[in-house]
Each structure stands twice: as C-alpha cells, then as structure tokens.
C-alpha cells in the first residue's frame, strides 16, 4: 500500500515537473516565433530559465500599505492550484482510463484558481494601479468563462454525457476527432479565443496592460513572488493548449508515429495562439466583454445546438 502511494506521489511530481519544462519551452517558443514574425532573431533557448533564476536572486519588496501575509501567500496558492491541475490533466491524458467521474469539472475549477489568486494578491497590495488591473481581470473572467463552459458542455454531450476526460478522449479515438464536425470547428474557434483571454495574451492582455497600467495586476510583486507568478503563467501556457488537444483533437497517444501527430497537434495550437497575439491590437475591457457575451457566446450556443442535432 505504502509503495503504491509513494509511486503515485513520484509519478505526480514527475508529471508536474514535466509540464513545467513544457511550459518554459512553450514560453520560449512564443518569444522566438514573435521575434521571427518581427524579422529579428529573438532570445536563446534558456531565456525563460534565466528569467526565473534571476528573479529568485532578487530581494522581495513588500509595500507598506499592503496586507503582508495575503500578499506573499497568494502567488503560492496560484502555484498550488496550477500544480494540481497539471497533475490531474497530465495523468488523465497519459492514462485515459484512470480518471474519475467529474474530473473535467474539477479541472475547470482548478484552472480558475491561479487567476483568482492573482486578483487577491493584487487587491491586497494596496496599489490603485493593481486594483484597476484586478477589477479588469474579474470582468474578463466573467466574459470568457461562459463560452468556455458551453464548449466543454458540447464536448461532454458528444462523448455521451459521461463526465470523464478519459471517456472524451476514448470516444474521439473510436468515432473520429471532435474537430472533424461542424460543432467541433465552432468549439475550436471559441476555445481558442477563450484560451487567449485566459492566458492573458493580446488582444486580451487587459489586466496586465504594459503601456496603460504600469504592471497592471502584478505591479507590486518583485523577486521570488514574481518568479512564482512567472512559473504559474508558464505552466498555464502549457496546460491550456493540452486541454484543448484533449477536448477537441483526440488527446496525446505515445505509440510510434502517433507521438509525432500529438506533438504536431500541440504545436499547431501554440503557434496559432502566438500568431493571433502578434497581429492584433489590445481590446478595451468593455469591447472584450461585448465580444465574449455577444458573438462568442452565441457561436458557442450554436455549436451546442448542432451537437444536439448530431452534427
């Protein structure tokens, strides 16, 4: 009993470290593709690692008017949430039959924790700029979570109303990828926009708007807490495309030629996200809200109805 418990713990730690490495690689890929699009060279492959090591070596400054404990603990809560989500997602994608009923719902809950932790940290920092960033992040969450959940409901319906990520992946393996249906394509577009907003990338990087609000939601963080926030964002950058691959493109299969197909699926989504990031201006928060509650939600509902009618 104890041996299997220790093996499970080791397995989960390795999965979390694997997703962290994948996340750091993806953030380097993001900067490199951005550089190539702008006709320049871009940073070397170890750049995200150097950023985090440098941040760990600086001092931590806590502002005078802030709630010290909440300010320093909230990045750690975000990291704990994303690490749990990484362990769950990695485990279910590698072994689709070993999930539990409702693990999709748990995953969606866990993926909201890092954003909420950032909002709490920014609100406790006592900086008016950070509180503007936090309020914009709250409004943005209200915007993109709705179509995101409607698409997840669509995918669950197409898998036969079984609330397991493993059965979603397995049903795609048997009856074709969800992407090869009209509701799948609509779901892909909606999920891509929602992922762009969740990752805080242009056109939806409104909470951390560099040129408008000094640092936005993370203005008052420095040193090791900022390193924890960067690690959380890197892991989120790896988990969101992987989740999209599991929901709509059939998940990861590590057998022979299917390894290349899995890597291709992941890379296509990441490069699409980076290209959208490089070719669009930033939206205002009211424009983003109108976009998400208007066209994007209507599109998601159309996708759900098409799935009901079997398309």
């Amino acid at each position, binding site marked *: 009993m104890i041996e299997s418990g220790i093996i499970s713990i080791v397995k989960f730690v390795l999965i979390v470290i694997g997703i962290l490495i994948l996340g750091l690689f993806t953030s380097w890929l993001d900067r490199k593709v951005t*550089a190539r699009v702008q006709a320049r060279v*871009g*940073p070397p492959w170890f*750049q995200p690692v150097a950023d985090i090591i440098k941040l760990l070596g600086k001092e931590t400054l806590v502002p005078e008017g802030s709630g010290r404990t909440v300010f320093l603990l909230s990045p750690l809560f975000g990291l704990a949430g994303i690490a749990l989500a990484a362990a769950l997602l990695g485990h279910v994608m590698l072994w689709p039959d070993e999930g539990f009923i409702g693990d999709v719902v748990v995953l969606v809950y866990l993926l909201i924790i890092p954003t909420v932790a950032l909002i709490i940290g920014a609100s406790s920092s006592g900086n008016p700029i950070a509180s503007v960033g936090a309020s914009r992040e709250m409004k943005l969450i209200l915007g993109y979570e709705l179509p995101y959940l409607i698409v997840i409901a669509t995918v669950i319906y197409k898998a036969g109303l079984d609330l397991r990520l493993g059965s979603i992946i397995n049903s795609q393996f048997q009856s074709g990828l969800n992407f090869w249906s009209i509701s799948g394509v609509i779901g892909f577009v909606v999920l891509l926009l929602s992922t762009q907003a969740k990752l805080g990338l242009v056109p939806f990087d409104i909470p951390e708007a560099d040129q408008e609000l000094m*640092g*936005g939601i993370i*203005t*008052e963080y420095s*040193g090791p807490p900022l390193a924890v926030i960067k690690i959380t964002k890197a892991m989120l950058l790896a988990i969101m495309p992987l989740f999209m691959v599991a929901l709509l493109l059939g998940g990861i299969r590590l057998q022979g030629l299917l390894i290349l197909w899995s890597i291709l699926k992941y890379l296509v989504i990441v490069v699409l996200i980076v290209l959208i990031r490089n070719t669009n201006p930033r939206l205002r928060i009211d424009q983003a809200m109108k976009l998400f509650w208007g066209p994007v939600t209507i599109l998601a509902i159309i996708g759900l109805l098409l799935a009901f009618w079997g398309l």
Partner: protein
Amino acid sequence: MSLALWGLKKSPWLYHVALSPCNNCDIEILDVLTPRFDVERFGIKLVGSPRHADALLVSGSINHHVKPRFIELYKQTAKPCVVFAIGSCALSKTMFRDSYNFDPHPLDEVVKEIDPNGIVAYIPGCPPKPEAIILGVLKALQSL
C-alpha cells in the same frame, strides 16, 4: 560566478526613468527597444513597473521636484540593480550645471547618497546612439 549573477547577466530587465529630459535621449532609448536593434537576444525586456526592473535607464538631470520622486523610485527597485546614466545631462548636467532649478548634485552622487553600494554606469552622448546604449549596457553587465 554564482547562479544569481549568471541570471542577472543573461536577463536584465529595463525600466525607463525620464527625469524631465529634453526627450532626445528618450527617443534614442525607445529606438533601442524596437525590433531593428533586437535587444531581446540579450534577454533585455522593457517592464512597466520599477519593482520588476534590474536596470534603470535614467535620462535628464535631477531638479528639485524630481529628486524626492527619484529617491522613492530607486528604493522601489529590487536590488541588485544597476543605474544607467544615459546622455550628458544625466552624467554631469553639462550646460545646466549653474541653473537655479537643478539640484547641485549630479545623478551618481544622489544615488550614492541613498545607497553607498549603488552601481552606476555611464553612457555619454547627446543623445547617445542606440548602438552606444547597447554597447554600454552590455559592457556594464560583463564587468559585474
């Protein structure tokens, strides 16, 4: 070389401090951060908050209004950090050295007053070319 120092050399994040300059140096600093000169290959990035910065690019001379604000800003930057004095006004106030509204001390003496261990690097020019700014930043990082 310690790991923290390697990280600092490979990933210096810049924050631009404009202490009421004539803005020529600011234009050259903005040119440095454009894709033409591609400073991201050195890991250099512009950040929006001084708390995230490793290097303060200071242009302009310190006058009486700006001095308390610059002192606050320097204290808000997480150490270890390097202050880059860009252009002649930040180095030695040149033609403004006898003016009524400028503080009698130039930038490096103000920094040493707050923080005796403060590191100041000098990039002369009026304004310095973007290539000169990049050369100065890299030389300063190499000598750390």
